[in-house]
């Protein structure tokens, strides 16, 4: 059990060891290409109050007057020491901004991850068990339509229905506006999470539903399932008994490998709901020419995707021992 795990983790860590520096160089090169002047983005509408001398002072304070290679060397040196630089839009160390905003995003992404896994597997099993009949058609149509819908549009529709028309749920933010963090009750927090989590849970669900359906159908056509149904087991009972065991491993692997996309989706969801997470910070960094923060977020999400893929590989091997022998 442990031998394959150690080998897998070691292999992936070696890959990360060359991927991370390459990605750092790539990100730095990409962001240095940007034609946006960070000083201008920072000054913004206050052009009249800030003279050329002050601009030069800001530029040299951020190290913008030095050549790119020198800036990259110093950024890399700082990075090795755990310092990602200073965020321009938030006026705080990048690491601090990420650490402060990560929990809010992880709450969204984590809940949506669990919820969409349950929902996707359930719908996939029902669709597979009722293949060709109306529940299957309804579920498949729903999955395909959701896959073709822009996630942020789904979010806007949810706001229009549940927040504006029905008035059941708040439309924005992680807590009622104007309240101190200490005044916010847990119930308030949960209420504010419902719509963003619902959005994130449904928009990326299609692959999971269709794959689960597919692997259940493959199982139902197998001799083992035919044998069980000859003994009187109904397709639904097969689906939620041995079929679930058959499909769950693949579903979990797929879902973990797609966890990075959940974060991508949360960028847009956080934009709609003004959710104070890392996704919102990404948008503000990109529109505010905040290169250090953008690079920090790039590296953080790289690690996030890496962890998701590693867990997916581990899940695949736990579910199917045959995979443990190869690599």
């Amino acid at each position: 059990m442990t031998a394959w795990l150690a080998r897998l983790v070691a292999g992936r860590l070696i890959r990360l060891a060359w991927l991370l520096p390459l990605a750092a160089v790539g990100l730095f090169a990409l962001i240095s290409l940007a034609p946006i002047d960070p000083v201008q983005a920072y000054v913004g509408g206050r052009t009249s109050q800030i003279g050329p001398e002050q601009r030069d002072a800001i530029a040299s304070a951020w190290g913008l007057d030095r050549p790119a290679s020198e800036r990259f060397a110093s950024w890399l040196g700082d990075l090795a020491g755990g310092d990602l630089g200073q965020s321009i839009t938030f006026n705080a160390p990048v690491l601090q901004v990420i650490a402060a905003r990560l929990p809010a995003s992880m709450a969204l992404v984590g809940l949506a991850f669990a919820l969409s896994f349950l929902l996707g597997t359930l719908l996939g099993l029902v669709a597979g068990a009722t293949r060709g009949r109306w529940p299957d058609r309804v579920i498949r149509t729903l999955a395909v339509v959701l896959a073709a819908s822009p996630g942020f549009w789904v979010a806007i529709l949810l706001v229009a229905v549940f927040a504006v028309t029905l008035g059941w749920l708040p439309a924005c933010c992680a807590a009622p506006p104007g309240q101190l963090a200490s005044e916010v009750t847990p119930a308030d927090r949960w209420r504010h999470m419902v719509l963003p989590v619902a959005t994130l849970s449904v928009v990326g669900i299609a692959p999971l539903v269709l794959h689960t359906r597919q692997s259940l159908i493959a199982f139902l056509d197998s001799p083992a399932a035919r044998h069980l149904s000859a003994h009187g087991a109904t397709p639904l009972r097969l689906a939620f008994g041995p079929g679930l065991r058959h499909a769950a491993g693949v579903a979990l692997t797929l879902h973990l490998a797609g966890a990075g996309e959940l974060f991508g989706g949360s960028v847009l969801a956080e934009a709609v709901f003004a959710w104070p997470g890392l996704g919102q910070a990404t948008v503000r960094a990109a529109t505010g020419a905040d290169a250090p923060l953008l690079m920090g977020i790039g590296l953080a999400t790289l690690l996030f995707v890496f962890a998701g893929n590693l867990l997916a590989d581990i899940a695949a091997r736990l579910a199917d021992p045959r995979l443990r022998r190869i690599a």
Partner: protein
Amino acid sequence: MSAVTEPIGAQPARLRTPYKRAARRGTLALALLAAILLGAQLLPGDALAIDATARALPPQPDHLMGTDLLGRDIAARTLAALAQSVQIGLLAAGASTGVAVILGLGATFGRLADHAVGVLTELALGLPHFVLLIMIAFAMGGGTTGVIVAVALTHWPRLARVLRHEAQTIAASDYVAISRALGRSRLWVARHHLAPHLVAQIVAGFIVIFPHAILHEAGLSFIGLGIEPHLPSIGVMLSESLREIMAGHWWVAAAPGLGLMLVALAFERFGEALRQVSDPAGHIT
């Protein structure tokens, strides 16, 4: 999206061959595309104009999809925005297909090239799709060019992998070996054995990339990194609708999203059907 295959004989009454299904869905998707492009051309000159006497109207016979706070007709604006999105999407998907062809076929030129493309793939898939899109759009300074470059540089890995695999399989096949032994040149083999297979894959790949391209373009425009706000685009319309939705003007968001969804849906279904044609075994990705 995964290809959903029905075992032959399961539903004989409704069974359609993959070819017929692809043709049907393709006709539908292309007709929709043509209708959008033509419709946007035929819009009367003042259809997008601001009308202070018709502000924030709900859907009604004069304004089928209502009007926004400035009195602009949502239906007309959606049509113009869709035409814009579709054109940018075609360009971006085309560029991405080009990248996939170059890298996918380039990978077959020796081990070193193969490794290099492998590293590039690893990097492109190392970040969440949308985060990488934001980075590239940011590097290009936003705008329409930024969107096209960002989409082109992020949507190629899957098609590149398919092309690489296909080219390697064909190059290693017996009939290519026999052709070479019979004295055919490499170019002849490439044109007569390789190209027919690859062109089909490339077209299918382009169709699969296209819906993703327009959805991601809308996402980038929505957060303000995409198409310039003065041009009609779905992302910008939806971003403007955020303010109006709170006043109960749901129709401002309804039509643009629905239009985009229908286009993406039509092409996604078309691409799926094409993939089943090129891979009848129901290859799941």
